[in-house]
């Protein structure tokens, strides 16, 4: 697992209060991890903070799964 993936998963566990095993790369924030649209806004803010990247709203809207987040962050680093 990449370093980005580790850090993303840690943030997801902390913010959504879900078990680490559930945070697979295929997991959908809304369908599998119990997030709502505002939780995703908050997660995106936490990713921005953690990785020092900016994720504009139109890009954030396309982040549906854990893998989407990891890929976007990796593409900007």
């Amino acid at each position, binding site marked *: 697992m990449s370093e980005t993936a580790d850090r993303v998963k840690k943030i997801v566990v902390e*913010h*959504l*209060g879900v078990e680490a095993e559930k945070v697979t790369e295929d997991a959908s924030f809304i369908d599998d991890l*119990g997030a709502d649209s*505002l*939780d995703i*806004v*908050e997660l995106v*803010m936490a990713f921005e903070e953690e990785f020092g990247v900016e994720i504009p709203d139109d890009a954030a809207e396309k982040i549906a799964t854990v893998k989407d987040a990891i890929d976007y962050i990796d593409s900007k680093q």
Partner: protein
Amino acid sequence: MRRVVVTGLGMVSPLGGNVETTWKNIIASRSGAATITRFDASEYKCRIACEVKPADHEYGYDAGLDVDHKIQRQVDPFIVYGISAASQALRDAGLDNMSEEERLRAGCSIGSGIGGLPGIESESLVLANRGPGRVSPHFVHGRLINLISGQVSIKYGLMGPNHAVVTACSTGAHSIGDAARMIALDDADVMLAGGAESAICPIGIAGFAQARALSTAFDDSPEKASRPYDVNRDGFVMGEGAGVVVLEEYERAKARGAKIYAEVVGYGLSGDAYHVTAPHPEGNGAYRSMEMALKKSGLGLGDIDYVNAHGTSTPLGDELELGAVKRLFGDHLGTMSMSSTKSAIGHLLGGAGAVESIFCILALRDQIVPPTLNLDEPSESCKGVDLVPHVAKERKVRAVLNNSFGFGGTNASLIMKAV
């Protein structure tokens, strides 16, 4: 009018994470006051408060028992306390698993005096220091006062009235009174009612201290600071927590064989129309509030055995309430007991009236009245009133009166009796 009874109790307080722990500590004359730990208050005029204790404390509170981790992160503590107290109360009443039909007739009336002050303070700093794009998307609904009622209705699927009172320090009592009327008037059959507060944060302590409302003379002996009716009292000690009761229509409660703690028989409300923070100099608002509750109850003054006073430990407020109580009770003063449990848990502001109503109910249940701590030297006007100094007292308790008064000159009184 339909009769309304109390069938469930829930509480988070500086002396316990639930009703029974808190009550045991109250009766044992314990104090929840200590030096503030939430932030460094060493440079503040007031450095003490009655904080809810962490889970590993002897009488601590475990938010995780009833509130999801995610919600705990997103909302202010007053909402978390409120959800916990409401959950405890529903379980106590045996109503945490109601049918859809029942839930359509079950609602919430859980308020707060101030709401999410710590979060408003901290997010304002985020805004000032880091800009609007860093403010939490949960900022608004994590701070709003009606979001205890909102969260609880979502958690338990309660589709009846969804209400939240905001009347400063009389919120808890108004919440219960208003909810009881909703049941009496057939708007609902079951109501979760109460109040919560958590404002022990820098702006909260600084603000109340600047209003000259807080005790500042006992920073080095916190447990001595809340001393209602004592000549050396110098202000209130801020507390935090939540109290929620389940109110239920009497015939329904009886039919399902519910444990019935008490009946809500009297509710009085009034306005001082005098000053934003100082009570009316003759205690007229307090008097009229108690008088209205008494009239509605159909009871006589001789039936009221215990008064849980507003008694915040401020020089002016205690004196005026005492005066109003003496004027109202007249010849019956000698047969009742009155105490202020704020001496033990501090002033829970919007939560006070609810938590103190629960103490009244427990006094009815256990036939014991809680003490007024630190009443070493009662002021002159206390003569002839049993203020239950220092230790709890076993006695006959048939009906109880709870008083709550708030900034803005708002007053509420509740009378409950055994069924």
